[in-house]
């Protein structure tokens, strides 16, 4: 994916590019759902449908050398950080061509070359590593930033607290992107978090906090750019409180008994970031269709690629345990 030139204002063509990428992620994840339901994909899968603007807005703001750590809901982050749909899909099919060579799976997507130090299936598990990576950037005077993605539910875990505290204490160049989708699995925010404004978490560390509408990719992009500037400039880490919505189940197959159909439908109708951007860009039906056809082809090709990929040999399981 071509990098948009780093700049404060985005041209219409930049935003079109964002649109294309968000739609690609959406179609990719829809395909993943479809293939999972068809019984082709093993494991445990979480899609981020509704949260595409966060992945794209954040990752487009990054520059070469910046790194991310992701979560169980990692497809969007991974694609936005530059892993090709082919490599990602191959991973989900458990192939050697996958971005983790078939060892990781959906919850453990890595792409070290492209700056993805790993999706993590332990909530909060990847945050401390981002602090340590950012510390390294600081010690070596690299102008790089470490970015951690995590959810609202993750702000309840001790790892989150310790990691943010340490990041602020050591003034490392890190940005903590909290994707507040108001749910932790089946548990609504009010039932897992004693505060309404999640940016208040940062007060405990004296950390700069920025709130942003996560359904507006331009807003996410701009807020991230400012946060990165702050962190890269040696002014310390930033907590990015992103308000967003998960428009599907927690995992593929989740019957969502914990929320009403009506609530879900309302949210879907009003909070689709792709719809928002389409409206903003005043894209015509034809234009959308064309982009859609293009990304669908990429997604279809990725399935082809993955299916034609190489299965690991059983004994390969004993490789890569040690360096």
């Amino acid at each position, binding site marked *: 994916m071509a990098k948009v030139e780093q700049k404060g204002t985005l041209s219409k063509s930049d935003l079109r590019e964002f649109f294309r990428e968000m739609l690609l992620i959406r179609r990719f994840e829809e395909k993943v759902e479809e293939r999972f339901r068809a019984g082709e994909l*093993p*494991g*445990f899968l979480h899609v981020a449908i509704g949260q595409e603007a966060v992945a794209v807005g954040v990752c487009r703001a990054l520059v070469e050398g910046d790194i991310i750590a992701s979560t169980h809901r990692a497809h969007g982050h991974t694609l936005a950080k530059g892993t090709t749909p082919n490599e990602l899909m191959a*991973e989900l099919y*458990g*192939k050697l061509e996958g971005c*983790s060579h*078939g*060892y*990781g*799976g*959906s*919850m*453990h997507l890595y792409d070290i070359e492209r700056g993805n130090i790993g999706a*993590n*299936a*332990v*909530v*909060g*598990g990847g945050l401390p590593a981002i602090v340590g990576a950012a510390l390294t950037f600081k010690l070596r005077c690299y102008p790089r930033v470490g970015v951690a993605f995590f959810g609202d*539910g*993750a702000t*309840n*875990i*001790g*790892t989150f607290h310790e990691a943010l505290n340490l990041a602020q204490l050591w003034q490392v160049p890190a940005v903590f992107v909290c994707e507040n989708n108001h749910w*932790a*699995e*089946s*548990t609504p925010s009010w*039932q*897992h*978090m004693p505060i309404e404004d999640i940016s208040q978490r940062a007060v405990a560390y004296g950390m700069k906090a920025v709130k942003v509408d996560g359904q507006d990719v331009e807003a996410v992009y701009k807020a991230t750019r400012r946060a990165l500037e702050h962190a890269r400039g040696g002014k310390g880490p930033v907590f990015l409180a992103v308000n967003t919505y998960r428009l599907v189940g927690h995992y593929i197959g989740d019957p969502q*008994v*914990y929320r009403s159909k009506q609530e879900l439908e309302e949210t879907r109708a009003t909070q689709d970031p792709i719809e928002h951007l389409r409206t903003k860009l005043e894209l015509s039906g034809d234009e959308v269709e064309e982009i859609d056809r293009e990304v669908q082809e990429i997604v279809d090709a990725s399935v082809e690629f993955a299916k034609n990929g190489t*299965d*690991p*040999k*059983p*004994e*390969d*399981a*004993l490789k890569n*345990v040690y360096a």
Partner: protein
Amino acid sequence: MPELSYREAVRDALSRAMRDDEDVFIMGEDIAEMGGSMGVTQGLVDEFGPERVRNTPISEMALAGAAIGAAMQGMRPVAEIMYEDFLTLAAEQIVNQAAKHRYMSGGQVTVPVTFRTQGGAGWSPGAQHAQQLESWFVHIPGLKVVFPSTPTDARGLLWSSIYDDNPVVFFEHRTLYGIKEEVGDELEPIPLGQARTHRQGEDVTVIATGRLVHEALAAAKEAEEEGISVEVVDPRTLLPLDEDALISSVKKTNRCVVAHEAVVRGGFGAEVAAVVQYGAFDWLDAPIERVGAKFSPLPFAPVMEDFVVPHANDVLEAIHRTVSRT
């Protein structure tokens, strides 16, 4: 006689205990409306309400610790740790607090808490969602460790765990939730610390836990067709361990295979092997064989995962190795 799945058996023990006793309550992530990630607690919030079926935030340390604190005040909480892998987060509370309060206080307090958790491979969740860590807790004085392999055992042992005045770490195996069995109308508590002999045999004893009990039984059936008579014993409670049952079985068969899904190195099978070689030394005709996961984290790709974790044929091969020793 009702038929219950392993999942329903666990649920049945929980709901009976809650019905009988106000002191019993359950807590954990997503255990209410969603019924837990494995559906074990489904429906319980409807009967008992959200005060006794408490959804917690993602806070393994605090949820384990709050259960401990409630237990010290006389409650009998059952705390669910969603995946065994996350026991690594609750370990401080379980090991340094729950296991030791009674001792450090010189006997002033009891900590009747039960930590339910589940794990196990076979569905490709990757390296952080299917570890088997029961052997860690067997090393901790003050804890009891239970690992049932059948619906009957799950129900009877969970009941006993809840009513035990000591902290219990109760392991369930993810791939067993669906297996079914007829159980009595009445819940029969099963005392902690008693092994169960699933199958009598003469030539070799297989000591197995969790999913591997079923693999061992399948292997035993195949072996029988080959004329090898296999005894299958499930300790069920790993701590305290029913050493006598294991040793006397091996004294009868003179050969022993230990099988679990956990990694062999440092696994519970090591402890069993050490106990059996000590207690049945003069009776053993062959070295004790250990069957367990190969030495790697759990890989994602099904062909690799399948290779890493043990199956009936691994048990059978171990049986062959041991009987072929002269």
